[in-house]
């Protein structure tokens, strides 16, 4: 057999594309085989073999062209290495075609046929794979196709003794039976040192460590299987991540059918709570119809409509979030005796955020809770009074009279009554729709005054302390309430004429002209043209009461002593004979425009096609929007309230537009 001339004719056939169907593959191999048959040495046995072989080969449809080429190539490389001196090296033509001759084994011939035809295809120089293979192959010891080669090694070495080592995995496509590898007889000479080395290498790869059960060999097999299954584009660039993913998957099997994944537990809980929102609101189709007949108006406003208008201005939460808020407010309306309510806005906090609802209770409903709170505070005051008296007596008994401090704490300004001034509305907060609503306490003037001086973020927990200087009297719930009060007083505007005062005029003198505090919608309002609204601020007015520096909306003289204080302060009255003249604080009356001279509330008006929006510059981040839509042709002009969605976690006390 020796050296035979290299294959004489390379049939000038145009090989079909790599991606052809199996039928053409078959045909092609048959075509290819014919020149083989022309070779005198092959004889006729080859032709039928080839034909038998071709279908067998095309059965390997799942293998890509590349892989199938790869295999026999490796096969040959292996043969070249393992084989005896009879086999010339790879680079000198392809004499392997003639290997079958020394062997009488037919199946070996088949395999050789396959390889021959494949070699010819390669020779046509079609694929870059060829170059790749070429470059990789001439390095026998460091062959990147080691897994394949090792596989072949198994074939050759163990085939004779105790059957081939076949990985019993259906996903693995390189099982030798498909390729039609033959079982070798003992005619294969055993190159001992090399063989031993290969076996050792494989044993090394198969070892597992104490920390994990996965051997490198298995992992590589998994990885390559995965790559071949998924066929990512440009696999080399994603090799590392695939490697990581494969490893991860081995150790983290998919979800149990019985147990939920512990990580997702809070998510599922929240989802359950929100589902409760939906089911309550639905209540079944029949229930809804009945309800509509009975209940004329629900106190919950149409949040979706207002959200739509705000969206036109570029402000607002997403629509499903708005819908959930709507459902949560309906839930609130069912739980509490509510007359009117409105979604005030959302305040962001560090750990959690607050959704705020502005609520007005029905007449008389509110008193019960208020009284409880007041009793507690009054009890506290009485205790303090007794303490002071005792202290004074003790001091008089001792010989050394400690000089009494002259300083008296400034008198506490009483908070406003509910339903008036800063406490006109009640506020409820919750962290997320679906969670229960918490009521915020009324705000005291001291809290408002202090809130003006500090700037702190909200954490999201209502009972968190507010650590600041000057010290804030209260916890986060009080601070939140104070900020809500300030924002509401400063940024709620409406077009001139939309609201008018109610008809009572008798109260004006009693209140010192400081302000009427009630207003109602003007039924005769006809709308103001958009251009006029945009041009100047004169057409916009505030419709909430301004909070005085004292912290209230209506002024109270703090030096008017109540009875308790008079008893205590008998001795000190003479000392303080010159009380500070406290001036009556007057703020701009309701329903007037606050000119920039007195109060800085410059607003930014952006005329949009249908919606006019103004943004308060003091609360720039989505704060203080007032929307007004005017339908020129139509009759009504629905007005969107100021939705104060305070993105800002604090109030800015600086003037706008200056440096510093």
């Amino acid at each position, binding site marked *: 057999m020796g050296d035979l001339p290299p294959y004489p004719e390379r049939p000038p056939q145009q090989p079909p594309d790599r991606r052809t169907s199996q039928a053409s593959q078959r045909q092609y191999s048959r075509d290819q085989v014919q020149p083989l048959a022309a070779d005198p040495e092959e004889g006729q046995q080859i032709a039928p073999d080839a034909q038998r072989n071709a279908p067998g080969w095309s059965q390997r449809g799942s293998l890509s062209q590349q892989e199938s080429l790869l295999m026999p190539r490796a096969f040959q490389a292996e043969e070249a290495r393992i084989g005896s001196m009879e086999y010339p090296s790879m680079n000198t033509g392809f004499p392997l075609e003639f290997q079958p001759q020394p062997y009488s084994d037919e199946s070996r011939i088949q395999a050789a046929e396959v390889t021959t035809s494949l070699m010819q295809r390669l020779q046509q120089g079609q694929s870059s794979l060829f170059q790749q293979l070429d470059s990789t192959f001439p390095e026998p010891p460091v062959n990147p196709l080691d897994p394949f080669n090792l596989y072949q090694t198994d074939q050759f070495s163990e085939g004779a003794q105790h059957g081939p080592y076949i990985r019993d995995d259906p996903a693995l496509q390189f099982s030798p039976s498909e390729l039609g590898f033959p079982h070798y007889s003992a005619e294969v000479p055993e190159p001992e040192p090399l063989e031993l080395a290969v076996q050792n290498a494989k044993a090394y790869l198969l070892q597992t460590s104490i920390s994990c059960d996965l051997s490198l060999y298995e992992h590589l097999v998994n990885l390559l299987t995965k790559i071949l299954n998924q066929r990512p584009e440009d696999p080399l660039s994603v090799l590392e991540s695939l490697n990581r993913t494969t490893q991860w998957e081995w150790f983290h099997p998919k979800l149990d059918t019985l147990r939920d994944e512990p990580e997702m537990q809070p998510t599922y809980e929240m989802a359950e709570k929100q589902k409760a929102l939906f089911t309550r609101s639905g209540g079944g189709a029949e229930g809804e119809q009945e309800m509509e007949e009975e209940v004329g108006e629900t106190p919950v406003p149409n949040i979706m409509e207002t959200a739509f208008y705000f969206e036109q201005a570029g402000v607002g939460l997403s629509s499903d979030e708005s819908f959930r808020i709507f459902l949560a407010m309906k839930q609130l309306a069912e739980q509490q005796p509510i007359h009117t309510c409105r979604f005030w806005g959302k305040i962001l906090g560090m750990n959690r955020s607050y959704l705020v609802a502005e609520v007005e209770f029905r007449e008389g409903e509110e008193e019960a809770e208020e009284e409880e709170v007041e009793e507690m505070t009054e009890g506290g005051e009485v205790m303090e009074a007794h303490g002071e008296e005792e202290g004074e007596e003790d001091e008089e008994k001792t010989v050394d009279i400690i000089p009494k401090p002259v300083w008296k704490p400034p008198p506490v300004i009483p908070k406003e009554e509910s339903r008036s001034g800063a406490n006109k509305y009640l506020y409820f907060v919750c962290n997320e729709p679906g969670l229960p609503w918490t009521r915020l306490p009324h705000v005291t003037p001291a809290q408002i005054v202090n809130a003006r001086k500090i700037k702190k973020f909200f954490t999201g927990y209502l009972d968190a302390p507010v650590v600041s200087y000057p010290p804030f009297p209260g916890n986060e719930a009080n601070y939140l309430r104070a900020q809500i009060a300030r924002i509401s007083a400063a940024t709620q505007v409406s077009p001139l004429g939309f609201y008018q005062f109610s008809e009572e005029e008798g109260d004006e003198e009693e209140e010192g002209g400081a302000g009427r505090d009630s207003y109602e919608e003007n039924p005769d309002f006809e709308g103001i043209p958009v251009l006029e609204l945009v041009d100047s601020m004169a057409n916009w007015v505030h419709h909430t009461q301004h909070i005085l520096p004292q912290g209230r909306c209506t002024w109270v003289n703090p030096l008017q002593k109540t009875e308790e204080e008079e008893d205590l302060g008998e001795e000190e009255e003479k000392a303080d004979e010159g009380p500070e003249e406290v001036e009556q604080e007057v703020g701009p009356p309701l329903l007037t425009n606050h000119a920039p001279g007195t109060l800085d509330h410059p607003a930014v008006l952006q005329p949009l096609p249908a919606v006019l929006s103004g943004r308060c510059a003091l609360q720039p*981040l989505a704060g203080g929007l007032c929307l007004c839509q005017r339908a020129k042709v139509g009759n009504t002009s629905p007005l969107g309230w100021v939705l104060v969605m305070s993105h800002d976690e604090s109030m800015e006390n600086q003037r706008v537009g200056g440096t510093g």
Partner: protein
Amino acid sequence: MDADSLLLSLELASGSGQGLSPDRRASLLTSLMLVKRDYRYDRVLFWGRILGLVADYYIAQGLSEDQLAQRKTLYSLNCTEWSLLPPATEEMVAQSSVVKGRFMGDPSYEYEHTELQKVNEGDKVFEEEIVVQIKEETRLVSVIDQIDKAVAIIPRGALFKTPFGPTHVNRTFEGLSLSEAKKLSSYFHFREPVELKNKTLLEKADLDPSLDFMDSLEHDIPKGSWSIQMERGNALVVLRSLLWPGLTFYHAPRTKHYGYIYVGTGEKNMDLPFML
């Protein structure tokens, strides 16, 4: 946020209350597509919106193949016509740092800043007041640059580095798990690393060089300048920066949706340490 998934991203980032009106959204979709074609960018990000007194600036950024290379910034006043901004230089940043307050909204507006400069005239040394004009465009460029360097973030694993140098988008990024998503260490600054070399060898040994090649948020100063929250019933993790209020980063765990957007006045919150 990626311009390809603009609508979904805007939905997910809407928890901060700021969004875009439908007409802006629609014009953004078309105009960003054209920007991508004209400038031959690999990816276009809608960066956000800077609120001015008279008008707002809409900002977009274009990225080339290498994700960590210098990004090109464009601005527009109406979401349809975009103009390229020059890259930021240190001089620009230093110059605009003296300007405080809101943006006007007009790119050609000039801020006036008076400085005292010592002038030597012969033997006399006296101070002269010099009025320096700073253009709003310069200020815009420097503010965007500062925000990018300080608070633009991406989740760990979204980009990976190849040994040849360029950084690529990781196509197999499946999202962070829930427990990872709540940790600050799973998020990186989207810029060249500054503090990475300061880590000890022990820390570096645990890092994966293909994924951990940027600074994480863990060691940001001041501590606590990031607020992590779960929204939408625990299905979305939102990070908000307290140093530059208005920057919102969102990520839906276990999915590959993530992005950040800045909607704010462009003013740094210098009072942060007092507010925490």
